[in-house]
């Protein structure tokens, strides 16, 4: 066994006597609506600023107030930040769930709890630290309206003291959270410091988890994928956004709403170079961006599965009428309302064919925060080049949780506005036909409304149309148009982001995955390698598939397709794409609303590999 896997085992048995440095999963169990967010962000930011790789996941119910909520911070010195199924440290603030929460602690784990809670006798292996929450808040006497928030600051102080989180970094985290508002910072720090002092004087360190300054996050940033996607969208030159509120798609649109004014106002007039509209429903959202895309703007919307369902008719329309638009689908569990606040990759198959008749949609699938930014701008280049809708399929875990990232790379290419004819261009050509395949790549030329030339106009329609965009029901005209659209889809492959491939010398088996499961897969591959199972890994980043995906599948004997839905949707798409390779593709699915864990991936592969050991 190699170090990483071994350590996890040691943690799980609690057998190690020494210190465990920078390696734990810490869960804050609260009631939603109780104002713990500031406290949790202070803890994770302080760890991040101390140079320790971290991730932050908020498991929240579809509710406003009064239901159990969990914020998990995973700190890992090896940089593995996927969800872990067990926790090492519990900050148990919810009396309703306290007993059950304790069952998820590893042996030898740690529990911080308000001192009025009763400790059950079932966990004598756990180190318990009581916190006099009410007493400290009473002594410090903050304004009554803030007392809920202040209660949560007590655990920030106590936990920091016992783990060794630097008080200076807690302060800097609060400074950045409160954007320099002195009074709020001081009020919170007062509680944090009083709590830390109380812990120093009254508690004895009995557990083995400690935090030490490291340098692994230098130069890095930490944010959620929806904010990253919004920033990418802004740097992609978006000028029109229409959206309808839905978890987990809303926070992308809200990040646009708050950041567009900071980045995209005309400096002289202070007027907007964009419009953003919250619509009456998702049909209106996609309808508006279709109107804007047709008129020549870079237009997008953000939604989730149920919204995508409502957009189906318009998505097929935009495909058939060839209008560039970008649709972010931040996926959540379905079918129907499903689990609205839980993550999934369940819209793959639906989106791929979204629309009636023969529709083939383009999908980009970011697997990390940098790609959320990158696909934010690149999606517009692809949509305008191909004159087609582009779906960006993120998910709740990637979109709403906190991830580390390298700073974003500025777009390395000029904007590609695609094949657009101006009045001057029209002057030079004999005849303009909106849907004619002039270049043989299936992509026609378009003109934009308002182009001041008598030849410019055409009549756009979702019904059958000929090259001139005139209505036609002639069989050969319809077939020719569909053949051209199929040709265009082939052209699309050349414009797709290529997969990310990690190959290991001598591996005969392989794993294909996509999206937010990347950290769990990487951690699992490291564990499997430590046990002698070598596996090559390909991460899909777009549909339609590129040649690299074909080549990768052909050269492996067995390929596990790992994904977060029940039916193995990408597995189905790959088998459709390469029917002669279908029997080599094995589906592994994890779909219970929680992000995938390395343990699950490791065991799922090992069970099927049995004694194969990679051969």
């Amino acid at each position, binding site marked *: 066994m190699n170090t990483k896997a071994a350590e996890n085992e040691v943690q799980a048995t609690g057998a190690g006597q020494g210190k465990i440095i920078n390696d734990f999963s810490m869960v804050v169990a609260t009631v939603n609506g109780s104002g713990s967010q500031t406290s949790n962000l202070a803890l994770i930011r302080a760890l991040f600023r101390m140079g320790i790789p971290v991730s932050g996941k908020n498991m929240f119910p579809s509710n406003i107030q009064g239901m159990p909520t969990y914020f998990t911070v995973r700190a890992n010195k090896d940089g593995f930040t996927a969800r872990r199924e067990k926790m090492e440290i519990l900050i148990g603030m919810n009396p309703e769930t306290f007993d059950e929460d304790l069952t998820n602690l590893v042996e030898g784990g740690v529990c911080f709890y308000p001192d009025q809670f009763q400790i059950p006798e079932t966990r004598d292996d756990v180190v318990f630290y009581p916190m006099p929450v009410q007493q400290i808040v009473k002594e410090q006497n903050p304004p009554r309206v803030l007392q809920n928030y202040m209660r949560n600051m007590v655990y920030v102080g106590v936990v920091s003291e016992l783990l060794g989180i630097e008080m200076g970094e807690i302060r800097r985290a609060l400074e950045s959270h409160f954007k320099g508002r002195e009074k709020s910072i001081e009020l919170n720090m007062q509680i944090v410091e009083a709590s830390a002092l109380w812990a120093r004087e009254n508690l004895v360190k009995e557990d083995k988890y400690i935090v030490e300054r490291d340098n692994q996050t230098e130069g890095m940033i930490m944010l959620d994928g929806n904010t990253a996607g919004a920033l990418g969208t802004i740097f992609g030159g978006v000028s029109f956004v229409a959206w309808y509120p839905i978890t987990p798609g809303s926070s992308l649109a809200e990040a646009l709403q708050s950041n567009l004014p900071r980045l995209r106002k005309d400096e002289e007039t202070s007027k907007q170079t964009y419009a953003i509209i919250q619509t009456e429903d998702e049909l209106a959202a996609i309808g508006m961006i279709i109107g804007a895309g047709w008129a*020549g703007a870079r237009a997008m919307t953000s939604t989730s599965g149920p919204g995508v369902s409502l957009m189906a008719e318009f998505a097929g329309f935009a495909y058939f009428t060839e209008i560039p638009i970008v649709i972010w689908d931040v996926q959540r569990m379905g079918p129907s309302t499903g689990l609205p606040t839980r993550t999934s990759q369940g819209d793959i198959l639906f989106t791929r064919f979204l629309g009636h008749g023969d529709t083939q949609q383009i999908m980009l699938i970011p697997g990390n925060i940098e790609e959320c930014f990158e696909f934010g701008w690149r999606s517009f280049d692809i949509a305008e080049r191909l004159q087609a809708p582009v779906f960006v399929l993120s998910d709740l875990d990637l979109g709403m949780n906190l991830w580390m990232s390298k700073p974003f790379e500025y777009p390395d290419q000029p904007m590609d506005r695609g094949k657009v004819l101006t009045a001057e261009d029209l002057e030079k050509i004999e005849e303009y036909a909106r849907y004619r395949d002039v270049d043989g790549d299936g992509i026609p030329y378009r003109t934009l409304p*308002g182009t001041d030339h008598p030849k410019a106009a055409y009549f756009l329609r979702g019904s059958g149309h000929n090259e001139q965009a005139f209505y036609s029901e002639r069989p050969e005209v319809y077939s020719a148009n569909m053949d051209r659209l199929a040709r265009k889809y082939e052209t699309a492959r050349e414009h797709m982001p290529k997969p990310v491939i990690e190959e290991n010398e001598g591996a005969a088996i392989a794993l294909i995955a996509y999206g937010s499961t990347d950290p769990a897969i990487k951690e699992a591959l490291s564990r499997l390698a430590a046990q002698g199972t070598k596996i090559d890994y390909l991460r899909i980043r777009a549909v339609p598939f590129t040649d690299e995906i074909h080549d990768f599948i052909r050269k492996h004997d067995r390929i596990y397709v790992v994904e977060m839905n029940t039916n193995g949707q990408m597995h189905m798409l790959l088998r459709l794409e390469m029917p002669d390779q279908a029997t080599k593709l094995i589906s592994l699915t994890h779909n219970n609303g929680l992000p995938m864990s390395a343990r699950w991936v490791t065991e799922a592969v090992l069970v099927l590999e049995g004694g194969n050991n990679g051969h």
Partner: protein
Amino acid sequence: MDTKAGDKQAKPNIPNELGLTKSDYRGRPSTLCQGCGHNSISSQIIAAFYELSIPPERIIKMSGIGCSSKSPAYFLSRSFGFNSLHGRMPTVTTGAVMVNHSLKAIGLSGDGDTASIGLSHFKNIVRRNVPMIYIIENNGVYGLTKGQFSATSDKGLELKNVGVNPFMPIDICMEALVAGAGFVARSFAGDPRQVTELLKAAFHFQGTAVLDIVSPCVTFNNRDESSQSYRWGRARKEPLHDITWVPKRKEIHVEFEPGEVLDVDMHDGSQIRFKKLERDYNPTDRISAMKMLEDSCCRGILVTGLIYINEETPPLDEIENLVDLPLTQLSVDALRPSKEKLDTFIERYR
């Protein structure tokens, strides 16, 4: 006294101020039924835009699904057209005019498209005051699917395949008023002059101008007892006023009796002139407008004219505080912030 000030009837073959003849405003041959009210409205659209000397390239013709929504193919061939989805025309139009506010949108819809499947979009576009002319060619029936009820069908209307309609109709003008519309008109396809003048006035209104035009369906809903038939319209039509759109700087010096004429100023300097007929009617009073609609419904008459006018609400592009240049014409520099801005901005996530 009939002034006809804004009604300079240019002859078809005479070029207008742009040097375009009426044929430059025509479309492809209509495939709608002979005698369809929609064809008459298409003709008035051609006439109005020709007479106003509007460059066809500045117009976008927007529609949903249905007989009415086919009609944009039959006028203004030199304008871009967008035949969208059933009930969704307002959404597509919003996107298009927001990113290019130099375009003037004319939306063609029907009673099914607007009052049944698209009612929510209709009310929301009005509420947002999206700059456009929104025409409902209202015949109280689904034509393209061969004779089903719409939300504006008369209660008691009998159709061959679907029986008798047991429900009261929706009054589109009332819905527009309730949603806060600033320009609400009702007309009759059999009154070309009024339709033309209303179109001219609507073109100069800066927000959503709603024109609910009773446009009989000769195939499925033209029996004499139907309130959407030609005979009913001709017999029970009651104009609120004689309406004329008066261009800017064309002062008319005609003496009127006090109270005989009301001039309403538009934001662009033109005027709408209301000449009194039988009744006293103030088109700037919203509550009177609602009461008048309720009364005329009870009395079974077709009141026509500009029911309500109020230009106080700013149009959506103004509310959104957009730059003067259409968004579609912004340079790459205006659309994509600099690398320095990105590098500075992400500091907040450290």
